[in-house]
Every structure is written in C-alpha cells, then in structure tokens.
C-alpha cells in the first residue's frame, strides 16, 4: 500500500537526504544506505525515487514529484511504502552518493573483487559463464567454486555498496551476550532468520540493526520492520558469520527441538517410552492366560499357539509371494530418463539440504567430499550439513582440516542422550535452508543425478507425495559372501518390496539414507524420532499416517555393505529392534492406527513392520522343532501341529524358504547384479544369522530399548573407492 494514493502531494511529509554540514555533501543520518540498494540505480533514476529506510514495516521512499502509476506498481513488491517528498537536487545528489555517477555507476562486484586481488580474472570469467548458464548469485557461485570465501564476498559487497561490514566471528560473543538483542531475536523464528540470511546485531529503542549477506534483498528487513514496528537498517557480513551466530544462538533450542519436537507434537508417536503401561498390562494378561491354559490343557494351548504362529507365518509367506508377483509385474518405481533430468535447467533449482550424520568417520571424509562434488546440482544451491558429535573430536578436527567445499557446513551436535543418528538429523534439520531435504550416510555414494530425479519426482507427483526413496545398494558387494548376501537382500527389498508396497498403497518403511523429503512435510511430522533406533522405518509409517505417500525412484545410492560378521549382527540387531520398537509405538492405539492407515495400510504395516522380525524370530524355533522331531520322534511335537496346521507349517518350511531365496535371486537379477544370483541361493544361511540378530534384538529391546548399536564403517579400502569415484565408476569392487 502506498500512502500517496490517499493524500495529496502537498500533504506528503518532507525529507532531506543530503546534509552539507561538512565540506562536501553526504547522506543524512536518516538515510539507511542498505535500504537504498533494494532497487537498482537504473530503477531509482527512471522512477525518480530513492528508498532510504525501513521503518515500522514500511519502505520509506523519497521522491521529488508524485509517483507515476508505473512507479507505484513497481514499488508494490516491497509491501507497504511510505513516500516522502524532497527536492530534485537533493534526490539527485543522494542517488549519486549511493549509486555513483549516472554515466559510470559504482564498480561491479566482479570488478571490485579482481581489482582488490580477491579473484582472478579468469575465474571471474568462468563464474560469469556459469551464472549465465545456471543462474544463481555470483557471490554464492564464487564461494561454491572455492574462488572466494564468504567473508571475501561480504567485503566486496561492502565496498560495492558502501554499506559497512561487520565481522561476527570476532564480535560474535558480544552480540550473543547482548541482552538487549533478545527482543530483536524474538521477532522472527529461526527458520525466518535463516531464510533471510540475517541476524540482529544492534538494537536501540527505535531501531534494529541487522547483519545480512545479501544487501539487495530487502524481504527480511521488511518482515522484521513490520513485526518489530521499528526502523531496521543493515550491515553486511559473511554467510559463515551468520550461520555461526545462528548456531550459537539457537544451540540449546535446536538441541531441545531435536530431542522433544516429536514428543511435544505427538507424544503417542514417540518411542521415549517403548512399551506403555497399557501394553505391559495386555502382554501380562496374555501371558497369564497362556500360562493358565497351559497348566490346564498343556497340549491344547501349545497347539493353539503353534497354530496361530504357523498361520501368521503362512500369511507372511503369501505376502512375499504376492510381492514377487507385484514386483516383477511392472515397473512401480518412478523412473526418470537422463533426457528428463537434462530438461531441468539449473536456474530453476531450489536450495537442497543434505544432512550427513557422521561419528568416528574421519577416514571417510575424502570419499564423502568426492561423492558430493560429483552431484549434478548447482553447488551454490547445495546446503550440506555435516553433523558431527561434539565429543567426536577426531572427526571434527579432521573435517576442519579437510578443506571441505564451502557448500558443506560442519554442524557440531551437542552431547546429549540419546546418542542417536535421528537426534543428529533433527538438530541439522533445524538449520536446513532447503525446500527439499535428504539424508546420506558419510560413506554413501549417491548417483550424481539423484537430487534432480528426486526433484522431478516431487514435481511430477501430487502434493501428497511426501517422500521419495532412492534405492540402496552396495559398492563392495563382491568383498565377501556376507556382502553378497547383504546386496542380494537389499536388491529384493528396494527393487521388489518397496515398489510393490508403493503400488499397493501400503506404508513404506524407509531405508536408512537417501530418502528425500519436502522440508515442510518433514517438519510438520515432527521429523525423526530420536528415541527410535530405526527412525527411518518409523518415519515411513508416520508419513503414511499423515496421508502422505512415499515413492521409490530409479536412482541408487551405493553404500558400504557390512563385511564383518560381528559388526553385521550389531547393525542388524539394531534394525530389528527398531522394527519391534516401531510396531510397539504405533500399536498403542490399534483402532486409531487402523483409521489412520486404512485397512490396507494397517495390514501392510503389520506384515512389514511386525512380520519381518517375527519371521526371523520364529525361524530357529521351527527349525529346532523340526530337527528335534527327526532326531527323537518325540510324541509332543505332532500335537503342536493339528492336521491343517501341519501342512501349513510344511508349506512355510519348504515353500516359504524357497520363496524368500528365490525373491533374493530375482531381486539381484532385476537390479542387474546377475553375478550375485548363485550366492542368493545360499541365503538360508544368511537367515540363520538374521535369526541370531533377531533374538539379540529382542533381548535388547527389553534391556536397552534406545541404545544405538553403531555400525562401524570403513572396512573397505577407501583409497580405492575414492579413486573409483574420481574415475566416475559406481562399483568400487
């Protein structure tokens, strides 16, 4: 709204922009130079105006004559505008002071950077070509190319605009300790401060001074001025200065959010308490009933329990059969061709946040850097957060010395229980700038086009598409038999099971990494549950409960398969424990869950989340009973299997085992890993290992429900992997 439309020109208040108290004319104190730069010199000259400050939510603009309709329309983009009249000479002198002479103007950013030896001419030329091709802001591009630092950019901008700069890395403590700024901080949320790349640095009763990275974008100041009802002026600083200050200021808040966000939003979905009192009561009642009936009619009760379990197992086998059918029937994943990816022009791409939690993984950093550099995404729009634990000093030191690209921000996660990956991710998410967010493990090698494919998936998909899961596979599949089995299992999981679940509109338990989200959706859901040790699977269920869909896309992230048996058991037991934990959490209110997931989704949840661990828990029991029968022909055993159930059990044992073996073989073949097909046939041995891990998980679920069994990475030769990345190869084997 512009005030001149409602008042005559004579009633418009006056302003003097130039004062000549000194030997030569200078801008008056009432003029905020940073406000002047929200329009270009050409616009100021052609419109005959000069924006000179933000005050009480309005942009104050000086003019020497009533604004034309065209000018009014042009200024509408700044929201409320308050016009002040001044003389033509005053305006021209002020414009000259701010923008330079009409003929020459002020030097351009690149010219200043080259002239001040902060940038080489050839680099500037390359950057300008890149900007012409891909869009983006020149300063950000130069930083992403490591041609300049954030602070260099700030200095050049300061020189270009005449706006003073401030080094917050030096003045940071003073700012954070300033109690008068607490009111200013409170006017905007953390997300808003981050969005506008801005923090408050000074406050008086009438004015707030903010530090910004981009003086040409006045949106943040407009919002702040409107909310604070104060005058807002700006100084320039570097982005790293801003992020450091924000990190420092919001450290406790972020930590609290990373621990309690979900708990506050929806306590019933949080695994803070794994088993509720009601659930304990129900389990106790069932156990008492079982013991009671067992004492009364031992054989009958055992037969009933056995029948229920055998029937459940048969349903799971049937489910897997259906998956083979569905998974091989058609392509249910979202497939994008290279041509479609190339159609996305880089200047259209939004900022993409990548969260990379890492602990004790200093050795992986070179691979991580190489993998991220390989991503086909403009680096100035990558917002990578390397999430390191505060007490992991080795990795923090290594990261700081690793000369990481500028688009990677080291985020130090404060020490607090639980020490889980989701907590670190939540912490990082609070600082995410991207419209979309994904998560990678430190050793991940995503396919270069993955971010663009995910973006295409969101663009093609409906608004209900909350998450896109990339497939996971292993780059060290050929390392040993265990890695081959692991790869075969993943192939079946990501190539058959997940696409089939998507096609059947059933909830998808997400994989540990490479799940891409709309940031708003992720935050709306309360992000990851820090107390759940398979936060990925849990999040997949919560997405479905909230009415969002998850799709699988044709892009793969290569990870390091666990090649060590003990390490593998540790990792697998955590996954299985997490599934059981997730099941217990969501089954607190079965009827409500049934309503939220729908009938199909509810049963899909039972089959995937409970069924998977249940099968591995039951396998050794039935293998033992079968072996015992052959060895002893003990008379009790036939009584456990009433006639129909006996056949079902036999089907489970034979058809079930074959089905899952075949599923693995077909899965690896579908992925094109034909060399793994023979090994997939040996997977029954793998299941024995799974059962071992399952029982460990069950015990740990009772004793240490939120304990995170850290998987040790780096059991491969990373130098070889890194070399292969540079050669553009995906398979390091």
């Amino acid at each position, binding site marked *: 709204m512009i005030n001149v439309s409602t008042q005559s020109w004579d009633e418009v208040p006056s302003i003097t922009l130039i004062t000549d108290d000194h030997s030569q004319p200078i801008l008056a104190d009432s003029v905020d130079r940073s406000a002047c730069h929200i329009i270009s010199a050409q616009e100021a000259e052609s419109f005959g105006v000069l924006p000179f400050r933000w005050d009480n939510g309005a942009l104050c603009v000086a003019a020497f004559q009533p604004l034309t309709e065209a000018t009014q329309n042009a200024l509408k983009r700044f929201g409320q505008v308050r016009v002040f009249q001044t003389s033509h000479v005053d305006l021209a002198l002020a414009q000259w002071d701010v923008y330079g002479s009409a003929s020459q103007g002020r030097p351009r950013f690149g010219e200043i950077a080259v002239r001040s030896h902060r940038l080489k001419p050839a680099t500037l030329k390359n950057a300008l070509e890149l900007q012409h091709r891909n869009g983006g*802001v020149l300063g950000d591009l130069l930083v992403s190319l490591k041609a300049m630092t954030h602070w260099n950019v700030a200095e050049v901008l300061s020189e270009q605009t005449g706006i003073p700069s401030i080094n917050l890395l030096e003045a940071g403590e003073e700012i954070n300790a300033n109690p008068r700024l607490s009111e200013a901080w409170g006017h905007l949320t953390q997300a808003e401060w981050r969005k506008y790349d801005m923090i408050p640095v000074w406050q008086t009763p009438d004015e707030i001074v903010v530090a910004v990275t981009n003086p040409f974008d006045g949106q943040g100041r407009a919002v702040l001025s409107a909310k604070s009802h104060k005058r807002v002026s700006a100084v320039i600083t570097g982005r790293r200065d801003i992020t450091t200050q924000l990190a420092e200021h919001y450290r406790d808040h972020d930590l609290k959010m990373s621990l309690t966000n979900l708990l506050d939003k929806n306590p019933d979905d949080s695994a803070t308490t794994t088993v509720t009192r009601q659930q304990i009561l129900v389990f106790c009642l069932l156990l008492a009933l079982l013991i009671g009936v067992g004492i009364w009619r031992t054989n009958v009760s055992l037969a009933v329990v056995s029948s229920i379990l055998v029937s459940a197992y048969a349903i799971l086998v049937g489910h897997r059969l259906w998956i083979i059918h569905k998974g091989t029937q058609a392509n249910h994943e979202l497939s994008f061709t290279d041509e479609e990816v190339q159609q996305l022009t880089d200047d*259209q791409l*939004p900022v993409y946040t990548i969260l990379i939690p890492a602990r004790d993984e200093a050795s992986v950093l070179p691979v991580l850097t190489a993998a991220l550099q390989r991503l086909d995404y403009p680096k100035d729009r990558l917002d990578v957060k390397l999430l390191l634990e505060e007490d992991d000093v080795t990795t923090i030191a290594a990261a700081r010395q690793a000369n990481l690209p500028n688009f990677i921000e080291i985020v130090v996660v404060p020490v607090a229980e639980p020490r889980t990956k989701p907590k670190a991710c939540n912490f990082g998410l609070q600082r995410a700038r991207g*419209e979309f967010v994904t998560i990678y493990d430190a050793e991940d090698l995503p396919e270069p086009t993955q971010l663009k494919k995910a973006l295409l998936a969101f663009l093609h998909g409906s608004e209900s598409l909350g998450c896109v899961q990339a497939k996971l596979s292993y780059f060290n599949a050929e390392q040993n038999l265990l890695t081959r089995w692991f790869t075969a299992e993943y192939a079946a999981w990501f190539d058959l099971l997940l696409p089939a679940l998507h096609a059947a509109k059933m909830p998808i338990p997400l994989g540990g990494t490479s799940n891409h989200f709309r940031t708003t959706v992720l935050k709306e859901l309360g992000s990851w549950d820090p107390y759940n040790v398979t936060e990925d699977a849990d999040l997949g269920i919560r997405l479905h409960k909230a009415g969002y869909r998850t799709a699988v896309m044709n892009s793969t992230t290569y990870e390091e398969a666990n090649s060590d048996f003990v390490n593998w058991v540790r990792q697998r037991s955590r996954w299985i424990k997490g599934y059981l934990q997730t099941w217990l959490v969501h089954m607190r209110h079965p009827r409500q869950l049934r309503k939220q997931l729908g009938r199909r989704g509810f049963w899909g949840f039972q089959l995937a989340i409970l069924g998977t661990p249940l099968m591995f828990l039951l396998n050794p029991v039935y293998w033992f009973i079968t072996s015992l029968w052959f060895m002893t022909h003990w008379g009790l055993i036939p009584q456990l299997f009433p006639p129909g159930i006996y056949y079902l059990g036999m089907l489970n044992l034979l058809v079930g085992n*074959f089905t899952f073996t*075949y599923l693995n073989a*077909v899965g690896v073949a579908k992925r094109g890993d*034909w*060399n793994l097909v023979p090994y997939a*046939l040996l997977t029954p041995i793998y299941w024995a290992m799974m059962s071992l891990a399952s029982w460990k998980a069950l015990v740990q679920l009772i004793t240490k429900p939120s304990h995170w069994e850290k998987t040790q990475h780096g059991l491969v030769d990373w130098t070889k992997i890194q070399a292969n990345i540079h050669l553009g190869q995906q398979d390091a084997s």
Partner: protein
Amino acid sequence: MIHTSSQSSDLKNSLITSSPATQPEPHRRFQITEAGWLLLITMTVYAASCVYLVYGLHYYAGDAQSRVANAYYVLFSRMPHLGAIGFVWNPLPSMLELPIVALHPWFPAVVARGLAGSVVSIVLGIVAVYHLHRIIRGMSINKYLRIVLTLCFALNPLIVLYGANGMSDIMWVACLLGTYSGVLDYLKTNSLRRLVMGGLWLAAGLGMRYEAVPFGAFVILALILAQWGKVSIAKMRGSAIILGAPIVFGGGVWIYFNWTIMKDPLYFLNSSYGNLAQTATGAYMTPAMAHAYHHIIGTLLYVGRFGLFYWPLYFAFFIALWYCFGKRRDARAMVLVAGTLGAELLEIVFAYQGHLGEWDRYFLEFIPNGILLTALATEKLLGTRIRSKVISAIVGIGLTAIFISGTVGTVHAVQNPVLGSPDGSVLDHAFHRQSMFYNNGDPYFGTTPLVRYINTHPKLTILADTFTDWSIIVRAHHLNQFIIPSDYNFSSVLHNPRGRVDAILVPQPSGVAQLNAINRAWPGLWQGRVPWLHLIKSFPGVDNWKLYQVLPTAP
C-alpha cells in the same frame, strides 16, 4: 536464491503439460480379443467333449480316475492326510483336483465319474491354448495363419480328448507351453517376470510329469546357448538359475517327502507301484516295444514315428535346426528344438530300457512342439519376402492346407495300433458314437456286482489296495469301510489282520495286479492257499476279484 512454492508450481506446470500421461484416455468398449475368442471356442469344445465322453460314451480314462481317487483318499479316507495323495505319480493333478473333490458329498460325480479331473484338464487345456497362441503371436506370422495354427492345436482330436478326459498329459503340455512362453518372451524382451513365470511353469510341469526334468534341462541349456556371446557369463548363469531354481526346488521337495514319509528318497522311482515295477511285469512289452528294447535305432524309430501326430514337425524340426547354428542363430529355434528333444528324452531312455508303457499319450508333446516349430519355420521361410497379394493368398491357402493336414493326420496316425494305443479305439468310439460301457477299456468294467455287494454290507471293514482296487473304492458308498495303503496302519493290518479287519479284497495276481500289496504280502492268497481266510464271494471279470473273510486263526 530461495524458490517459493509458486515457482515450483510454474516449473511443475511446464513439465507436466508436456507429459503424455495427462492426455485423456480414449473411451474403451468391451471387446473380446482374438485370444479371447480362441479360448472361448476351446472351452466350449473341451467342456462339450467332456460331457459327451462321460455321459454319452461312458468313457473314463483309468489314470485320470485314479488321480481323482488319490485326491478323494486325501479328503475322505479313514485317516485324511495329504500323504494319501501317493508318492509314485506326480502329485500336482490330484492336488489341483482337491477343491473339486471336496464337493463329493453334494456331487458324487466329481469322483465317481472323474469330473474333478476333467475340470482341471479343461482349464489347463485352455491355458495350453493361451500359451501357444501367445508364443505364435510373438512370431512374425500373419493373423490368419496364426489363428489357423492355434486352432490346429486346440482342435486336434488327441488334444481335445486329453483336454476333456482329466489326464495329466494336457496339464503337462500346458506347463511345457508356459515354460516356452516365459523363456521366449524373456529372450525377446529381457522381461525378468516372464523368465520367472517360465521357471514356475517348468516347476509345475514336474508336478505333472517327470518328463519335465529332461525337458527343463534342455531348455535351460538352450537358454544359455541362445545368450552365448550376447550377454555376460554372469547373466547367462543367473538367468539359467532363475529358470531352473523352481524345478530343482520342486524336485528336492518331492525327494524330501519320499524320504521322510516313504523312507526312500527315490521311492517314486523304486516303488513297487512305479512305472519301472509295472513294466518289469512285462505287461506292456508289445512287439513294437520289443523292437526298441536295447536297440538305439529301433528306439529312435519307435519314438520318432510318433511325430506323425503332427507330421509337418519332421520338416519344421530340420528347418529350425538350421537356424540353431552360425550367424543365422535364432534363440527361439534353439529353445524349441531343445525343448522338442528334451520332452521326448525320458521316453527315448525308457523305450531303450524297456520301461516305457505302450501309451500314445507319452508322445502328446509332439503336437504342440510340431505346431510351434511349424510356425517358426513358416516365419523363417516366408518372412516378408512375398509382396504380391495373389501369391501371398496362394501361399496362405497352401500353408493352411498343410497345417490342417497335420491335425487330420493325427486321426489317421491313431488308427495305427502302435501309434494309437489306446486312443485310436477311443476316437473310433467317439466318432461312431459307440458307447464304451462294459468295454474292456472301461476301468469300471465288471466292478458293479462287487460294488453292489460292498454297499449292501456297509459294516464290513475291508482291507484293499487302491493301486488295483480304486475303481471299486471310489464307487462304494462308504469309503471308511476300507483300510487302504494311505492309512497309517495299513501295513500293520496287512500282516496282522485278526480282529482289525473283517475281509480282504484281492484281484487275480496277473499283469500289474501282481504288484497289489496283498498279493505281494500273501502269495497264494487269491488262489485260496492261505488257511486263515474264508472265501466270501468271487466276482468273475477282468480282474477276477475275490473277497475273503478274515478268520480268528489269522495272525
């Protein structure tokens, strides 16, 4: 730069407007497709033939009835259990018949007239036609010739007979064609799903017939060779494993059950009821078989003669063979040639060893294989060379004549007593509308007085071997009055019958009836040389059954 959602929407719009997915779908009208018509015709013909054969001619295929009987014992014997399905014959036909046999209390004809078997053979006959049509559709043959070829198969008199009579042969042919279909589709389109389907059909084939084993081995070999030099060794090996794994698993399960239940992993092969034991009695050693016995040329001539079931096979086979080698190598030719040889390999071995029965149905695969090879040969020879419509029409008429002559040739072939045993007689009866009631080929021939006697004595518990006595047992009103081999205590009762069974039913120990468990356990029993038995009644006829009372002096 931070993009707002509106910018994303613009980008979305620009991308989505070019997407074909947003084009409105054309209005679809319900139409019966070409395959639909063919299957409809097939179903009608097979179902009508079934009714005609069963109710018009009183024709019952003995083995088909016996398989239905096995399913009957599973559900309705004194001790119902799946093991009663038997461990000699492949179990899948009886398993598929189980749900239909379950209707026995309401529709006794599903067992007494073997309709359960007929329903399964009709369904799988339709499946066979579907697969054959699908395979030919994948070849570059014009629609008219494709339809003619499919009908030549579907309406071939032997195929119609087996599509209607409940025998496992048409079920096996359906599996054979399903395997071809999956493998050929995979080789053409690289569709993993089709390869999996091929593997599952092959495994199902083993559930129907043991011929699936050599057939599968040859097809797997052909799959490897067809991909040789075109794909990686890993892919050749992997695809072979995916195709072969289900049948290997199926075989393993079968051996496992034979081992755990019958205490002999190769019981299906070594059983006293098995083919080897039956042929060892000499009951099937015809003069023609004698020429093949231990004589390679004689064996090949014997088996090769059955190619007359679809005579164009002889030419088509060699044309396809030509396309198995060198630069002209065609994967389809390799698979079909290998499959044709593999499907007959077991017969060749058995004929050589003298273990082959004299039945023409063992060579039923020559018909679908002949038609597929003919289709391939037609495509190879004609291709797109003929451009003139007139010449094309003339060639088309000529080919039609050849195709049809193959089917008509089947009728002539089965007139030959060697090639048409026993179906030449069945077709004769069918074509001349002569009832087969009270015919020697009728498995129920001469059983009526015995069944009537048993039905009038419902409290009489009888020990009987279903191997020879099934035709009586399935028509008796009370199955529970029989103690049969699938009962857990059969063997015990057989050796210690006193007080546990009232009577023993036994056929004359000649031919395969020598293998009857009672005749084997108590030689001379039928002749009355066992002192603790008293003859209740003799039932003269083909099998000359005798019913003996068990005396208190019995062991």
